[in-house]
């Protein structure tokens, strides 16, 4: 395959807290190729969002990127100056956040916000900026876009606000959009609309997406490749359909078994015992070992991420294909 668009290597983002150093992201490596949709899944505290923020250098104190590298087309972003990062953000990599009601500026019309996003990266006449904005809004399915430019965020519904946020993210035709739970706050019918449109937009414009979500089903409908995170580390990676059918990490298998849609109604769900460990006080070996039914003495040493073709798993006792019983969802 060609050189990846984005290369993340051994990325580590830590937060200095009163209780100690919190290792939110601890040695994460992955590639994203041009035009590819990569799903990044995990539960709260797994480090999936912090990974997304770290790519754009959007980690604020007390958090800091303590190591590793993020290269966009071979150019290092970790440690790059503010001016260099500003030239990249919104232009070559942009981001869509979970809650559009807090990420859009409530006191500026969306037309103004879009003009500012364009003006940050190129010199455009007002007329040209306006027509670019109308075009972007139309593309994300906002009817009567020219008139809606003068409206303020509160005049849009939640689904429409998220469409505006997506339109702004796509304004400068970026190569990569980091999408952090963009449909979690939306109703299922609106989520279905946005997922369908987003996938078509990415395909038509050749934009790569990193799709961050806790929802395996949403990710499976978007991403060809999936990365699973647990306690700040990548624990499994591979083609989505294969990973979800034959997961190799006991945690991935446990997550799939926990989904009510995968079980016989009324029957107890196969649950993962215990809770996610505190990132301040991780076990010395495999972070999942205390909750894992396969754990033994070996798991006291941290497992490496072992690659095998397109797949990778971080486990001393990967589940083997025959044992993984994932019932086909209806």
């Amino acid at each position: 395959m060609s050189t990846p668009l984005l290369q993340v290597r051994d990325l580590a983002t830590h937060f200095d807290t009163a209780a100690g150093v919190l290792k939110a992201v601890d040695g994460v490596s992955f590639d994203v190729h041009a035009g590819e949709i990569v799903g990044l899944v995990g539960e709260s505290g797994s480090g999936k969002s912090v990974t997304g923020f770290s790519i754009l250098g959007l980690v604020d104190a007390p958090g800091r990127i303590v190591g590793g590298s993020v290269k966009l087309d071979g150019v290092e972003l970790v440690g790059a100056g503010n001016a260099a990062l500003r030239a990249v953000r919104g232009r070559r990599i942009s981001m869509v956040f979970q809650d559009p009601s807090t990420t859009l500026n409530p006191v500026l019309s969306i037309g103004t916000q879009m003009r500012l996003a364009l003006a940050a990266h190129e010199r455009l006449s007002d007329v040209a900026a306006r027509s670019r904005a109308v075009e972007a809004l139309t593309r994300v399915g906002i009817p009567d876009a020219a008139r809606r430019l003068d409206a303020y965020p509160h005049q849009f519904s939640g689904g429409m606000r998220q469409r505006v946020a997506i339109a702004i993210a796509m304004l400068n035709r970026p190569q990569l959009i980091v999408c952090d739970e963009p449909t979690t706050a939306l109703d299922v019918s609106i989520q279905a609309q946005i997922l369908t449109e987003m996938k078509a937009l990415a395909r038509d414009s050749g934009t790569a997406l990193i799709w961050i979500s806790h929802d395996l089903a949403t990710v499976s409908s978007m991403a060809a490749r999936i990365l699973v995170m647990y306690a700040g580390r990548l624990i499994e990676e591979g083609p989505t359909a294969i990973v979800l059918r034959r997961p190799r990490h006991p945690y991935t298998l446990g997550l799939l078994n926990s989904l009510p849609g995968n079980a016989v109604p009324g029957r107890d769900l196969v649950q993962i015992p215990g809770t996610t460990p505190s990132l301040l006080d991780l076990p010395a070996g495999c972070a999942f070992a205390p909750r894992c039914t396969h754990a033994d003495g070996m798991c006291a040493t941290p497992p490496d991420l072992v690659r095998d073709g397109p797949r990778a798993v971080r486990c001393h006792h990967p589940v083997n294909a025959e044992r993984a019983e994932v019932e086909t969802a209806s």
Partner: protein
Amino acid sequence: MSALIEVSGVSKRFEARPTIGERIAAKLGSAIESRTVFAVDGVDLKITKGEVLGLVGESGCGKSTLGRIIAGILPPTEGQASLDGAPVMGVGRRPVKTTTRVQMVFQDPFGSLDPRMRVGESISEGPIAHGLVTRAAAATYIAAWLTRVGLPAQASERYPHQFSGGQRQRIAIARALAMQPDVLVCDEPVASLDVSIQAQIINLFLALRRDLGLTMLFISHDLGVVRHICDRVAIMYLGRIVETGGAAEIFAAPRHPYTRALLDSVPKLVLADDSLVTFRPIEGELPSPLNPPPGCHFHLRCAHADQRCRSEIPRLAVVADGGHVACHHPLTP
């Protein structure tokens, strides 16, 4: 079997009082627009003893409002909810709840527990006030309920912030159960939890139901969760119930076009080798409950809508398998 909970003709309207500016404008003769939200609009519903009824709908459809009316913590504008034939709320200017036999579990365990009260106090406050347990026997009583929901008895001495989201939801469930209710109204009790924790709480509900024979109204937007734990399902759209029926029947063959569209909107785990988006989204958005469309509320988004749907409100009618559907053109299975 007779109905334990019976909701008849319940409507709830929320009216925003006009601001001073608007009152002056009205005095000067300008028309001000009506700001009445029709949250619940003429709902009839029955829950039989021992049944788990799922109440499903998107945000703003009125499902939480209906849940609160059934729990007796919100007075309806019209109609009433009753338990064993007796209204759950009194009438008058300041109606109060008249029964302790219905209890509620809320979505957000961070907001529903008093952060300054020890867990044990939160659980025993109600039972002591209502004479279900004496102050002297409270400690044993608290310990029994904590154990029942899978928490150690020592949890009683701690504060809510010392627990994770899943544990807090267990505490909220223990607090509701300690009132020894016959009916539990659960408003999105697993929506804010991670998948692995959600499975633990779902299993707890399944066990409680088996062991205590609880009757439950389970409000959720998550169709997977509802299918898993509910016997019967009621689907709400913009304040009205559009379909009810057995969970298995509704999920296999919905009769209302909205139910069909809702089921089609849910992302499925794609286990085939090509991961294509497989759902067919519903066109358009939920109309504003401030100004609901005439006739069938769904007609603006429905592919089957005709002239009749635009003017005449469809009533809930019985269908072959015992379910009910409010549609002029129900789907045939």
